[in-house]
């Protein structure tokens, strides 16, 4: 296999495209990546003696097929949109923030602190306080790697990944130790104050006002991306850091701001999960939302609308795979396989957006 690849490379050459690929084509490539991923993943379903079409039918039915199903998909969509935007913003400016998971947990922890310390404060005061607390918690978690990168040149990928674990264990220490809810059988913080609970926007479902907050953040990202001078700075930084530097863009300052905002958004995700769904700080607050955010950002081509669509698709896959599991017995981790393969296909698609492969003629041989 290895030698085939190497040999075939010598017959082809990879050439950078001079023309940029049209938006329609880019979207087409992304759809192809998703379809390809589901096709490849179906090779894991076939050995179980289950028709993949039926499995995927159950998946989509379980995500969109009823009011309850769709509402659960929206519940999953909310944190994924936050983390997707958080990662997309960071990647746009080439700050490799892989720490959305930890930032989410630190945001949730700081927000919970206010939620369990102050009772009887009106909703219109405590809710903004907790959201800002979430933002600050997430920001702190992202600023440390940003400082280490700017000051010591340490790759933020490693530090953000390590911080995910540090924050997770510290959060565990809190809910197993000083914050342990005395009236609960499992480790969790006491319930946050009733005034801090986000309202359910669709009666009879778990869809909460956090969805609006997430969409607002996505819209703000859209404005930054499309209109803002800062969005232009970010894109320039992402495309060509040297050119950005020559243009007089302060790289260090920008990294700090990116980390602050990206981490903050991921932190709000944690706060909102506590205020809208769990009402306690819990170990299982996030099902890898921070990592899924990476897949979402890449699949959405870092574009705000793309990120919204990608987050909705991933919410569909994750929610639907639970229903598929109940209906067909296929283990639900298939969702994570689909996510991983999707990310790999997205990378391949991005390659074909930037390069074309040509066969080398006789002259070059």
């Amino acid at each position, binding site marked *: 296999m290895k030698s085939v690849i190497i040999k075939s490379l010598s017959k082809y050459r*990879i050439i950078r495209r001079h023309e940029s690929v049209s938006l329609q084509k880019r979207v087409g490539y992304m759809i192809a990546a998703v379809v390809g991923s589901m096709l490849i993943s179906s090779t894991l379903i076939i050995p179980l003696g289950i028709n993949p079409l039926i499995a995927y039918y159950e998946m989509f039915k379980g995500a969109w097929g009823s009011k309850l199903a769709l509402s659960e998909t929206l519940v999953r969509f909310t944190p994924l949109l936050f983390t997707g935007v958080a990662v997309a913003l960071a990647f746009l400016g080439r700050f490799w923030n892989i720490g959305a998971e930890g930032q989410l947990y630190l945001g949730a922890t700081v927000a919970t602190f206010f939620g369990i310390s102050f009772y009887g404060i009106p909703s219109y005061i405590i809710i903004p306080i907790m959201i800002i607390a979430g933002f600050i918690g997430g920001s702190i978690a992202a600023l440390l790697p940003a400082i280490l990168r700017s000051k010591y040149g340490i790759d933020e990928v490693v530090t953000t990944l*390590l911080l995910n674990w540090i924050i997770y264990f510290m959060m565990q220490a809190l809910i197993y130790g000083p914050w342990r809810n005395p009236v609960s059988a499992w480790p969790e913080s006491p319930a946050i104050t009733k005034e801090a609970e986000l309202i359910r926007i669709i009666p009879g479902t778990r869809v909460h006002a956090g969805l609006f907050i997430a969409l607002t953040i996505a819209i703000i990202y859209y404005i930054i991306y499309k209109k803002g001078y800062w969005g232009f700075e970010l894109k320039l930084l992402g495309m060509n850091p040297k050119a950005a530097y020559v243009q007089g863009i302060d790289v260090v300052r920008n990294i700090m701001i990116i980390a602050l905002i990206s981490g903050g958004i991921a932190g709000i995700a944690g706060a909102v999960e506590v205020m809208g769904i769990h009402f306690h700080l819990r170990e299982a607050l996030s099902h890898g939302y921070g990592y899924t955010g990476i897949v979402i950002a890449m699949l959405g081509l870092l574009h705000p609308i793309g990120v919204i669509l990608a987050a909705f698709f991933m919410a569909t896959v994750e929610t639907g795979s639970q229903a598929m599991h109940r209906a067909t017995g296929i283990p639900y981790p298939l969702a994570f396989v*689909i996510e991983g*393969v999707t990310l790999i296909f997205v*990378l391949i698609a991005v390659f074909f957006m930037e390069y074309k492969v040509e066969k080398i003629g006789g002259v070059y041989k």
Partner: protein
Amino acid sequence: MIPSEFLGTAFWISVAALMIRSAVPLIFGTIGEAFAERAGILNLGIEGMMLMGASVAYIVTFHSGNYWLGFLLAGLAGLLMGILMAFLSVTLGVQQHVAGLGITILGSGLSFYIYRITVPTPGGVPPRVNSFPPIYIPGLSENPYIGPIISQPAPVYIAILIVALAWVIMYKTNLGMMIRAVGENPKAADTAGINVYLVRYIALMMAGFLIAWGGAWLSVAHTSLFLPGMTQGRGWICIALVVFGMWDPLKIFLGALLFGGIDAFQLSIQAIGYFNIPYQLFFTLPYIMTIIALVVVSRKVIYPSALLKPYRREEA
């Protein structure tokens, strides 16, 4: 008052034995990673490769009862993932950060999925498999001081052999010279007639194979079960450790022992339960130490020059 166990020789002997066991996955993982990075590829697929190794070793051992076979096939699974990483980062030359994360997300999901479809878990309890027993060394294993330290499962000795072998390959063979060359200056290496693509493929295959062994150690030697996500971020510690060890197998070995020691120490004082603080805080220690270590060495390290840079002959 400090409890007597804390001062006792028995405590330190158990810490030493545990230090070696905690260091083994770091040795396999970091030496594997060192080959990838020396060839110019930052392989962030390490966590996923480790998990696949753990899962495959466990599944094969569960069905065959043979942990040696499990260990071998885990290595092959890692090798295949190394080829995938090479296809993305060498042939296509896409962003190495994201490619590696893709492999990690895929590996985490796939390791969990194949475990669920191949191993029945009645009542949700994962069945235990045969695992590597401690090696019995006549005359020494009974010794109360040395016995617990040197009477370890076979992969411990394999890890030590790998350290020596990796050092020889890296510095004393043609292959090692070529790996270092393509990681420093791929264009010059190409001009000298070295197939840059092939060498990087080989380096990533070696990396995947060894990294998967780090995972296999966790499932069929250190414990005898597989748990989803059981590597608990050890892969990321390896990524930092390879910098700390300056891509040199011997320094990596010492670094792995140091971090294994921190891990063993935190586990042991936790077990004594002397400190009245939540035990989860001890878990953070190796990760915090890793970040501190990176800060300490940050001014001194010289990364392989071509790290993170894809090589395209057409653009060279």
